[in-house]
């Protein structure tokens, strides 16, 4: 057993987007396995996951129904559980959710 006090790091982050003025159909789900990252990327990702604080977010934000709003589904999986949140443009979700989603999408390109 680890004597470390920090919680176990996540093992997998998934991001999927749909909607927006350019993407009617669901785009492929992008997955990043934490084990496959080099030390710098892993550090950057852990910071973003911490800032996004998925555990404190509602599963979905009330959708105000803005035309052309992009919809994002973000999942963070730890060894023993996972959390998924849905958010859209202009629904008041915190910016760190966008930053984490953006990192995952950029990393896979």
């Amino acid at each position, binding site marked *: 057993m680890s004597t470390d006090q920090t919680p176990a790091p996540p093992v997998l982050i998934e991001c999927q987007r749909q909607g927006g003025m350019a993407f*009617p159909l669901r785009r492929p789900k992008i997955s990043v396995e934490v084990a496959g990252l080099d030390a710098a990327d892993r550090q950057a990702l852990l910071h973003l996951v911490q800032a996004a604080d998925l555990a404190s977010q509602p599963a979905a934000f009330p959708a105000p129904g803005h035309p052309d709003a992009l919809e994002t589904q973000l999942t963070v999986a730890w060894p023993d559980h996972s959390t998924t949140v849905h958010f859209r443009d202009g629904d008041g979700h915190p910016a760190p959710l966008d930053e984490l989603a953006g990192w995952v999408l950029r990393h896979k390109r």
Partner: protein
Amino acid sequence: MCQHAGCPPHVCFIIPPHMMEHVATNASDPTMRKRALHNLYHQGQLRGMRASMNQFAFAGLGTGTKQRTVYDAQHGGDLPGTLVRSEGQPDGQDVAVNEAYAYAGQTYDFYLEVMKRNSVDDKGMRLDSTVHYSTDYDNAFWNGQQMVYGDGDGEIFDRFTKCLDVIGHELTHGVTQFTAGLTYSSQSGALNESFSDVFGSLIKQYAAGDTADTADWLIGEGLLIPKAGTNRTALRSLKAPGTAYDDPTLGKDPQPATMKDYYSGPDDNYGVHINSGIPNHAFYLAATALGGQAWETAGPIWYEALTTRLQLWSEFKDAAAATRDVARKYGDAATKAVDDAWTAVGL
């Protein structure tokens, strides 16, 4: 409670922001308008908007008084961001700022000169735009109060300010919000999308002096970054829905041209950007059958239907009936062109 016609009471109790704005502008009771404005202000605060009431764009300006502002989100998510350009200031170094400003102006001019409409609310509403929204952001949207543009990802999508018709599309969502309302789901949502594409295309055709025959009838031509061996022509085609792109990364343009290929799945708010291909194609057919410049006859017929005949839950059959009816004012040729167009798409 909302007083104006065509607004079911149960809807106005829920009051999402776009409807609240509709109430703020259209309700006959001044107290109701004031309360809606107040609610909008607080929702704006909740959504991280700058908390100052004078930022609010319902200025009530006289006809022909164009007011544009452009903000820079500096790749963050806060709206509106930092003010970088106001009406009358010259072009600067930032091409996205210059485009957002210039194309909002061309859209304003089209609505004023062709449709005799004074800005999106017909009361001179200031046109606010935010550029450089978020990072690698492949989208543009209308948040009920302003336009928001991303820079694209640089690989598939270029910056979303690049195309006049995309900016015209976004501002037309504002026009729809202040008129028919057209709930953003299923057929009413696909009509909402279609009116944005139709007027986006007309704004581009008007600026270029195109005729219906010479126009490309594309939305967002040049927005997709070309790649060898793939079709990345545009986002949508009113002339040939379903042919705008075909690419391993993007997939194939899913738009149907007729009711036979109607999409009934749950994606995209039940197909708002997909089934819009059907009314889009009907407009194209009507405009090309009429010939000449599409904003001269077909445009005003669609505009009158949007602004005086349709409402929150209108469906394709309602849009077909409304435009068929309005077309009668324009004579036999227009009546036949509009009737044939809807018949051809299965309505």
